[in-house]
C-alpha cells in the first residue's frame, strides 16, 4: 500500500502565444495566412518517479520554477500528467487552496459548507466538524458575518482550519504559513505536527528550510523539473543548500 506513486511522470505546458482565443480571431486568421504559429513548450516535470508511504512527511524542495507546484497540482488531480502515471490513495486536502472556494457575499458558516462540499464532504460531516473548525480559526464571533468583511488573516485562518479539520488522508501544504501572525503560525505548525502524528501523509512545499527540517523526515529535491535527490530530510536539504550557495555552474541546464 502506498499513499502516492509517481511513475515516470512528465508534465509539459504548451504556451501557444497566438492560438486563436476567440471565434473572431479564428475568422480573421483564415484571411491572414502569413502568421505562423509559434508555440513554446516547457517541461515543468521530466521523468519524475517516487513513492510516498502512508504516514510519511515528505518535503519537496527546489528553486523557483523547479516544478514543485506542478508536482502538488498533479497530486490533487488538478493537472493530469503528459506522460507517466500519478496514483493517489485517499482524500487529499490541500492547503494550497486556502480560501479558494470562498464566496465574499456568503457568511463564514455558508462558506464552510461550500468549501467542505468542494472537498467532497456531505453536509452532515461538515456540520459535525463546524464547531471545531470555527474554534480553531478563532472566529466564533464572526461565523455569521459575510466573508467580505473578514481581514485577510481571518480568511486564511478559516481556510487552514477547514483543510486540517476535514480529516484528510493526505495533506498537501504549500507555502501558505507565511500568512497570519506569529502565534497563529505556531498554532498551525503545531496542528500539522499533530495531524502528522495521527498518521496522515503530509507533503510539504516550502522555502522555510528550518520548518521543513522540523516537520519532515524525508525530502525530495527537484531541479529544473527533474528529481535530483530523494532521501532523509537533513541530507537532502543540506545538499540543496550547498548547491544554492555554490556560485555559478550548477544552474546551467
Amino acid at each position, binding site marked *: 500500500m502506498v499513499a502516492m506513486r509517481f511513475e515516470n511522470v512528465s508534465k509539459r*505546458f504548451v504556451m501557444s502565444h497566438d492560438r*486563436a*482565443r*476567440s*471565434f*473572431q480571431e*479564428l475568422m480573421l486568421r483564415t484571411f491572414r495566412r502569413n502568421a505562423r504559429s509559434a508555440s513554446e513548450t516547457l517541461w515543468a516535470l521530466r521523468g519524475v518517479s517516487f513513492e510516498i508511504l502512508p504516514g510519511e512527511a515528505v518535503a519537496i524542495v527546489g528553486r523557483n520554477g523547479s516544478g514543485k507546484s506542478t508536482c502538488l*497540482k498533479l497530486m*490533487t*488531480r*488538478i*493537472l*493530469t500528467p503528459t506522460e507517466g502515471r500519478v496514483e493517489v490513495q485517499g482524500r*487529499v486536502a*490541500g492547503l*494550497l*487552496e486556502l480560501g*479558494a*472556494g470562498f*464566496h465574499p*457575499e*456568503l457568511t463564514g458558516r*455558508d462558506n464552510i*459548507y*461550500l468549501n467542505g*462540499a*468542494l*472537498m*467532497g*464532504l*456531505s*453536509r452532515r460531516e461538515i456540520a459535525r466538524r463546524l464547531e471545531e473548525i470555527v474554534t480553531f480559526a478563532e472566529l466564533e464571533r464572526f461565523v455569521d458575518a459575510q466573508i467580505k468583511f473578514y481581514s485577510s488573516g481571518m480568511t486564511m485562518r478559516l481556510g487552514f482550519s477547514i483543510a486540517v479539520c476535514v480529516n484528510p488522508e493526505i495533506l498537501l501544504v504549500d507555502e501558505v504559513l507565511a500568512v497570519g501572525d506569529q502565534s497563529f503560525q505556531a498554532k498551525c505548525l503545531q496542528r500539522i505536527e499533530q495531524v502528522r502524528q495521527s498518521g496522515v501523509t503530509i507533503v510539504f512545499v516550502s522555502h522555510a528550510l528550518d520548518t521543513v527540517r522540523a516537520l519532515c523526515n524525508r525530502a525530495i529535491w527537484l531541479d529544473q523539473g527533474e528529481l535530483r535527490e530523494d532521501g532523509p530530510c537533513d541530507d537532502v536539504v543540506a545538499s540543496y543548500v550547498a548547491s544554492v550557495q555554490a556560485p555559478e555552474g550548477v544552474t546551467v541546464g
Partner: protein
Amino acid sequence: MLSRIREIVVYRELLSTLVARDLKLRYKNSVLGFLWSLVNPLLLMVVFTIVFTIMIPDLRVPNFPVFVLCAVLPWNFFSTAILSSIHSISSNGHLIKKVYFPLEVLPLSTVLSNLINFLLAFVVLLFMIVMFRIPLTGALLWLPVVVLAHLLFTGGVALVLATMNVFYRDTGVIMEVLIQAWFFLTPVFYPLEILPSSALVWGIELPVQRLVYVLNPMASIIASYRAILYGSTLGSPPHAPAFDFLARTLVTAALCFVAGLWVFGRFRTRFAEEV
C-alpha cells in the same frame, strides 16, 4: 463516461450546495428577487398578447396570454440557464486551478438553480390557467417527463457551450445573438400549425413544419408543455402528448445530454491550464 457520472453522484452535496448558494445570492439582495424574475416573462406575455390579439388580430388563438406564457416560461429557463452557464468554467479559474472536483457540477448547478426558479414561476402560470378557466386535466401527470427532457437538453447544451467558452472566449457574446434567433425560430409566440407544411426557397422545396421539429428539440419540448397545460389552438382542452412523440423528444434530449458530458469530459483535463 460511467465513472464521470459516478463521480458527479459522489459530489452531489457539492451540486446542491452550489444550487443553494446560487439561489441565496440571487434572492438575498432584494426581497423582491423572486418577483423580479417574473417581470420579464409577464411583460413578454403582455406585449405578445397586445401585438397578436389587438394589433395583428388574425392569429385567432384563444386564451392568448396562457398560450404564450406556457411557452415563454420554459423558453426563459432554457435561455437564462444557457447564457449563465456559458461562463461557469471560464469565470471560476481561481477555483479550478486550486481545488479538484468534478467540474461538470459548475454548469450543471447553474442549470439546476434556474430550473428551481422556473418551477417556482409555474405557480403564476397555474394561477393564469385557472383564471382563464382552462381545465386542469390528468395530462398534467406527464409534466415531470417533459421537465426531465427539457432539463437534459438544457444540461447538454450548457456543458458543450461552457467547454467552448474556455477555448474561445467570445462564445458567450455569439450565443446572445444566436439565442435570440433561436427564440424566433421556435414556436413560442406563434402556434406551430401556422407554419406552411412546405415552402419553396431558392427553388428548393423545404418541409418547414417538419424541419422545425426535427432540427430544434426546443420546438418539441415547448409543444409538449403546451399540449399538457394549454391544449390546442382550436380550443380543445389540455391532453397528453402522443406517446411516440414524447418518447422521441425524451430520447433526443437524453442523447444531447450524453453528448454534452462526452464533449466536456474530452476537454476537461485542459481546463485548469486554459482558464
